[in-house]
């Protein structure tokens, strides 16, 4: 993705603009300010007409970050929704609109909606369509995602379950498309999670397996996907719980995840997202007592609870050995040394009291390497040395 790791340059950063360009810019600024004034005036005047709605559309197309206008747009929409619901399907219609109205009524009943719901649904569709080009242009604007979420929440609230559920499925497809455009957009990932949650509520079934497979697909496309690895980690304990996995199956899954991430780390130890996932896997090895076997532990554990001292130590030793192997050919990778130091520290704490499992001289060497590779964080390494008692 071209935009990751590249500093954003403001469109107006160039100071050496020609006179013509500057004049054009002044005109554009004046136009914008005029539009803004118009909208603000309407808001202050509590003008809830359709004209105001159109004006907010024009303003938001130019500046989608203007969240106050989004707020007012929602007030306008809410107002229309309320009026629709209040009017119901009664209402005296004039003869000219009768034909059209009957057509609407037919369409509504066909979709299993009341006329009011049909109107609301149409308005929502229009607004969602309005958002799409904005979203493609500004995929990281909080307010666009928020407004979408609000519209969908309204759908859940005001429309029949089946209709709402269809709309949420549509959102899932949209978010998948946005993730193709930029697989690391955390807005999209967060929206995906809430979408999945809603679909699960409305349809009454779990999507954990599908979502897990989706994360596999995403990391296969791009290893450096912090969000995909994160989502995977979120799903894993829940997945195992839903599968009602036995202790054996849990161990198999855990080992398979370790194997996967080790393979990825061998391919590219310089990628921080991979180390985060490795840390996550190791963090689930918190030693617990049998009383934790229910509740919280079930939601965060991969391996079957209770996790014994022996198991934790065994895994830590195994991983430390594996990571030491990774040094071969990647001696300049600071993440490897950092991982070694972190896990060694945990090992020491666990084995507290017994003989030194990891030689301090080895740890000292690793710390020296980190110092050399990352001299700007000298203060942090000094602190680390103190906490490791090196």
């Amino acid at each position: 993705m071209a935009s990751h790791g590249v500093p954003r340059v403001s469109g107006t950063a160039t100071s050496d603009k020609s006179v013509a360009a500057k004049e054009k810019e002044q005109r554009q600024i004046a136009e914008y300010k005029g539009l803004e004034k118009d909208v603000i005036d309407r808001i202050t005047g509590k003008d809830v007409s359709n004209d105001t709605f159109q004006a907010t559309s024009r303003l938001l197309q130019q500046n989608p970050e203007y969240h106050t206008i989004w707020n007012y747009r929602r007030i306008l929409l809410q107002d229309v929704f309320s009026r629709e619901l209040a009017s119901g399907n009664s209402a005296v219609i004039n003869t000219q609109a009768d034909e059209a109205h009957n057509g609407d009524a037919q369409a509504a009943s066909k979709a299993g909606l009341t006329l009011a719901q049909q109107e609301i649904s149409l308005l929502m569709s229009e607004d969602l369509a309005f958002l799409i080009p904005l979203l493609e242009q500004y995929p990281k604007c909080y307010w666009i995602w928020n407004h979408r979420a609000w519209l969908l929440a309204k759908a859940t609230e005001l429309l029949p379950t089946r209709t709402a559920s269809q709309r949420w499925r549509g959102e899932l497809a949209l978010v998948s498309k946005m993730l193709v455009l930029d697989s690391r957009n955390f807005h999209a990932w967060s929206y995906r999670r809430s979408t999945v949650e809603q679909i699960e509520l409305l349809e009454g079934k779990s999507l954990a397996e599908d979502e897990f497979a989706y994360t596999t697909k995403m990391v296969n496309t791009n290893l450096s996907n912090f969000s995909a690895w994160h989502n995977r980690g979120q799903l894993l304990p829940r997945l195992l719980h839903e599968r009602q996995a036995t202790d054996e199956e849990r161990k198999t899954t855990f080992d398979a995840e370790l194997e996967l991430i080790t393979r990825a780390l061998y391919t590219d130890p310089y990628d921080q997202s991979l180390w985060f996932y490795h840390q996550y896997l190791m963090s689930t090895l918190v030693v617990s007592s049998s009383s934790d076997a229910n509740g919280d532990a079930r939601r965060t554990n991969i391996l079957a609870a209770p996790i014994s001292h022996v198991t934790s130590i065994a895994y830590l030793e195994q991983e430390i050995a594996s990571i030491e192997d990774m040094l071969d050919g990647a001696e300049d990778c600071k993440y490897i040394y950092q991982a070694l130091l972190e896990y060694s520290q945990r090992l020491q704490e666990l084995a507290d009291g017994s003989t030194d499992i990891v030689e301090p001289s080895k740890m000292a060497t690793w710390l020296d390497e980190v110092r050399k590779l990352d001299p700007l964080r000298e203060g942090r390494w000094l602190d680390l040395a103190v906490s490791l008692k090196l």
Partner: protein
Amino acid sequence: METLEGTEWDVVIVGTDLPRSLLALSLSRSGKRVLHIDRNEYYGGDEAALSLSEAEAWATRYAGNGSLDEVVTFSHARIETSEAACDVKLSQSRAYSLALAPQIVYTQSKLLPALVSSRTHGQLEFQAVGSWFVLQPGSDAGSASSLVRVPSGREDIFQDQSFDLRAKRSLMKFLRFVGNFEEQAEIWQDDAERPFPDFLQQRFGLPQSLHAALLSLTLAATPAAETPTSYALPRIARHLRSIGLFGPGFGAVIPKWGGLAEIAQVACRAGAVGGAVYVLNRGIDHIDNAEGDPFRLKLSGGEQVLAHWLVGTADNLLTKAPTPPHVGPGLTKSVSIIATPLPKLFPVTAEGGVTPAGALIAMPGTTPGDPPVYIMAHSADAGECPSTQCVLYASIALPFEEGQGRLRAAIAAVLSSIDGKMVPAPLWTMQYHQHDLGETAKASHPHCIVLPPMSLDNALADVVLEDVRQAWRQITGEDEAKFLRFDPREGMED
């Protein structure tokens, strides 16, 4: 105008192959009076796209074995059709547009932005070249070869189960190095002239099994043992840097409807819109006055015309073209129409990516001294054949006698490696030999420009555009920044 007799031109361009067509394009807004002629009755010259009947005529014309005292570009052309009974038959002639120049264009290539800035890209459709394969011989003597995908990046390496963790690590290290090899001269300068496989083995500990894959990314026609590191590295870098530029999963494109011929056609069309006059079936028979200013030309139709500038190849310009100092083995090439679409060659290579219309297969030589075979596969989406078929273009850097058997064997190996199903022999195959006559002398007169023809490289080289730019500058004297930069014409959407 009724006749060319007695007309006077600012520029006469001889030949409508790609370099000359790009020159016509570059002159299309200059207001110069341009006459663009071609001895053939089709556009594209050496890069033309041929229907079946055009190919038959072409093959008859170039069937000769090349005379002893003259090196010609094309020779040894012949066509074979399969007698094997099968449900799929050849379609009518016009259903095919077979490319003499199926070169791929890397997305990094300077030609593509030039097509955009000259407002011609809208008339062209480009399709992705997706997968790269190496054809590995079967493990036993009798077993079929297998197509192995070449990893083109970190994720490919991650997923590939065929090599171990050490090999993955070494390969990643090499790819990272290639990413900015220009700034790490100390790693490869000493090995610059040594064979590339040696460099891979010794500097990166890459086992022999991985050499073929990396060599395939260079598209080097020379045998592995004769491919120096200094040649291989920039080409691999170009490949890797091109991936993802136009979309996920591919780094090179092919023009639809018949390869580079289509670009030549569009360029000529733009030339004509700019006022140039196009005449096919015309060449230059004689230049009456070598001292020029203007040149008095006798065309093959008998007309006498005047030209202030003359642009052509050494072949059709210089009265006595000197034999190029060194002519290598050239390329033995073949075009094969296959009766099935071979979808296994054209999988979508990235999540949400395009369906490619091109694929590349490299078959390494049996020994390091043997040159490799390259096969460019074009699906029906490339617009060169009906939708139930596909086209395989093969080439090898050998003289015809040795090369033709190798190509035949390579095509057969590819077909048998695809899924074990019985794939019939090619419906139609044209084989021929092509020499690179690029080594040219300069004409003695400053207004006579010899533009070299395209090289035999499997990928379009940027030097083509460079040569055209130089010629354009000589003729117009304009600032380089204006080369192929046009405003949209009035009334035309961009």
